[in-house]
């Protein structure tokens, strides 16, 4: 029989989905309400009904190649209308979390960062590195005089730690994304109506306005929160790059004075991030009549970003207030969260950015993308 198919369920995978926040996956009875109420699910092979049964059956390989689980923007209209409380939105979230780990290079980094119980370990790593470097170089004391963070932790040391590690993370991330892209194409690639470059550029332009989020109904507040976090990061990224230029090319010493427009951008970025992440957290805790639960992975990331923003702002405020004994330790703590955010990004929730960009690009290439 041509249609015959042998399933080899991956039991550990099913257990993993349930542990990662998809505990309700087995409640799904395949009514197919979800794909119809989903505002962005395509006409041909809509999601998430098929993902639900694939997860129930432990079809890990098929799901690893799915563009749909990343195309999903977690609007949660599916979970709102699900008649069985199977929470497809959360199941897809759990799959994304598992696949960030599955595709991670090296694997152990994915295992540490995607496991909320090991967050302490993940944070301890940079703190220990910082303390060792400061200790060896004799900087482990609070400097006298005007508060200049590089007097405590010289920029060169910061760069010596961060630049190679971020570089390695970037390479690891590209390897992970390539693996995903190759699997995706091998399983789903058919005839393309658009080339990669054009589709990718269109995807990035769409990110700037967060167009897909506007289609969400059950969870429409998420767009503002996500946009604020997104642009907060964009602003802070620009300022960080500028700082390198400022230090080396212009030969000036940070901090940048408050009167400098770059400082305005930095402060606006910090506030945007703080406000955005507070909205994310408020959205998650607010009862909206949708059956959803945030996973430990989601919460860990939200709290890390909140602490990143808060410690960043405090680092500046305490410096301006001139409290030396507080300012330097705060800076160290802030650097720890910066490390988590930018060195661990291929393994944390931030990693969704690349996978989602590729999934949307693939949708556009196959002509399935909804306008």
């Amino acid at each position, binding site marked *: 029989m041509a249609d015959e198919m042998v399933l080899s369920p991956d039991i550990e995978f099913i257990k993993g989905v349930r542990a990662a926040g998809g505990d309700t996956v087995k409640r799904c009875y395949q009514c197919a309400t979800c794909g*119809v109420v989903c505002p962005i*699910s395509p006409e*041909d092979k809509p999601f998430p009904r098929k993902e639900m049964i694939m997860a129930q059956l432990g079809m890990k390989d098929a799901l690893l190649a799915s563009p749909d689980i990343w195309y999903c923007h977690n609007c949660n209209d599916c979970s709102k209308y699900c008649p069985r409380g199977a929470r497809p939105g959360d199941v897809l979230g759990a799959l994304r979390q598992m696949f960030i780990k599955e595709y991670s290079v090296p694997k152990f980094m994915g295992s540490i960062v995607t496991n909320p119980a090991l967050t302490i370990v993940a944070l301890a790593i940079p703190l220990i590195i910082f303390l060792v470097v400061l200790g060896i170089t004799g900087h482990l004391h609070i400097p006298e005089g005007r508060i200049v963070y590089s007097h405590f932790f010289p920029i060169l040391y910061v760069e010596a730690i961060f630049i190679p590690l971020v570089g390695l993370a970037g390479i690891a991330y590209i390897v992970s994304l390539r693996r995903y892209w190759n699997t995706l194409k091998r399983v789903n690639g058919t005839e393309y109506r658009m080339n990669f470059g054009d589709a990718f550029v269109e995807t990035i332009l769409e990110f700037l306005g967060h167009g897909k989020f506007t289609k969400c109904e059950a969870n429409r507040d998420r767009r503002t929160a996500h946009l604020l976090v997104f642009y907060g990061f964009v602003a802070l990224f620009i300022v960080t790059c500028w700082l390198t230029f400022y230090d080396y090319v212009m030969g000036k010493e940070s901090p940048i004075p408050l009167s400098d427009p770059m400082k305005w951008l930095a402060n606006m970025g910090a506030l945007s991030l703080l406000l955005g992440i507070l909205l994310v957290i408020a959205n998650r805790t607010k009862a909206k009549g949708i059956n959803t639960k945030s996973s430990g992975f989601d919460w860990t990331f939200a709290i890390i970003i909140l602490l990143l923003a808060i410690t960043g702002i405090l680092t500046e405020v305490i410096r301006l207030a001139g409290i030396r004994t507080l300012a330097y330790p705060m800076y160290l703590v802030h650097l720890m969260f910066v490390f988590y955010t930018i060195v661990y990004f291929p393994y944390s929730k931030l990693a969704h950015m690349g996978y989602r960009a590729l999934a949307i690009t693939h949708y556009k290439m196959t002509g399935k993308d909804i306008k």
Partner: protein
Amino acid sequence: MAIAPERTALVVGGGISGLTVAVETAEAGTKVVLVEKNPYLGGRVAQLYRYFPKLCPPYCGLEINFRRIRQNPAITYYTMAEVQDISGSAGDYRVTVRQRPRYVNEKCTACGECEKICPVERPNDFNFGMDTTKAIYLPHEMAFPMRYVIDDTVCKGRECAKCVEVCKYGAIDLDMKEKTFEVQAGSVVFATGWNPYDATKIDNLGFGRVKNVITNMMMERLAAPNGPTKGRILRPSDGKEVQSVAFVQCAGSRDENHLDFCSAICCLASMKQATYLREKNPESKATIFYIDLRAPGKYEAFMQKVQADENITFIKGKVAKIEEDPETGDVLVTAEEVASGKKITERFEMVVLATGMEPTTRMVKLPGNLQYEQNGFLRAVQSEGVFASGVATRPLDVNSSVQDSTAKAIKVIQTLLGGK
């Protein structure tokens, strides 16, 4: 020979289940008091056009029961009456019954003169608001008792009183008052039945917003010769004879946001209604969208008969979006066809939502110390001599409801007449 109160059964609900309990126990030698909240007996069955699987008219069975009631002096029935309170204990329950005024007494011959002169109209609840009656109205053509009733929420009362003038029989009494009385009974049976689930609560299926979306019970009334269209299947928006109908199964059923259970009858009801459509409008086509089809036991043969009709299509996939085409009034129905894995949007002239049976005790609880299961159905009641029967206990088709009620009648007889 007078029957002692301890040999009296009080039956709450005059639908097919309550009627069955009443006649079966009374014919075994008990006294029965039957209390019905509507102005007529027969309950939901009175609203049906045909039974499945034999497609015979339900009223025939009801009439046999009405005749058994009429012939049996041991049965007293009260319409427009509800139980207010229950006290006492096993063998001696004291039940307070409140009866709303009908304003029309037993002298009424149903001649209909009053209705002609009455200036006030009201939506006809028997036909789910698809037509109107006057403020003084006969509940339906074959109502038992065959007697008019006044809806006092709309009647202008004394200041109008035109009906009183034209009634040759002195049957109308606008001064009739609400009555409250006590019934002593050795056994109480709750046959409180069900209501169709309120389809306006299912916001994605368009009922109340899209004109040509109706419920399965409305479809029964459209098909019934004594219904709003005299048995023609015409759609609400423009009265057009319908040529294509989508049946949406599990509309608010097996759904934790609505009714968490399967109502057991809706699949067969939709298949049955597809045959109404095919019979009355021979050019028509029907499509049944389902999650799972439930046609157990002997009903499988009926399902096969319906499936054999090439103008009736079955699609696996629950309808989750319904929109109106404002130009034509047609209805656009979207579902994921599970077999092909494609989202399909199809156009129909009318949509029938297969809404489930909500036990009347789901939202409003009965007086007395009764137990309910999670969906509001009555559990087997603990007190001696107190029983629940029919759809009050679980979703049932008419046949099974009658079987359940006959079994409960035996329990009542055992309680009242001994023989345990």
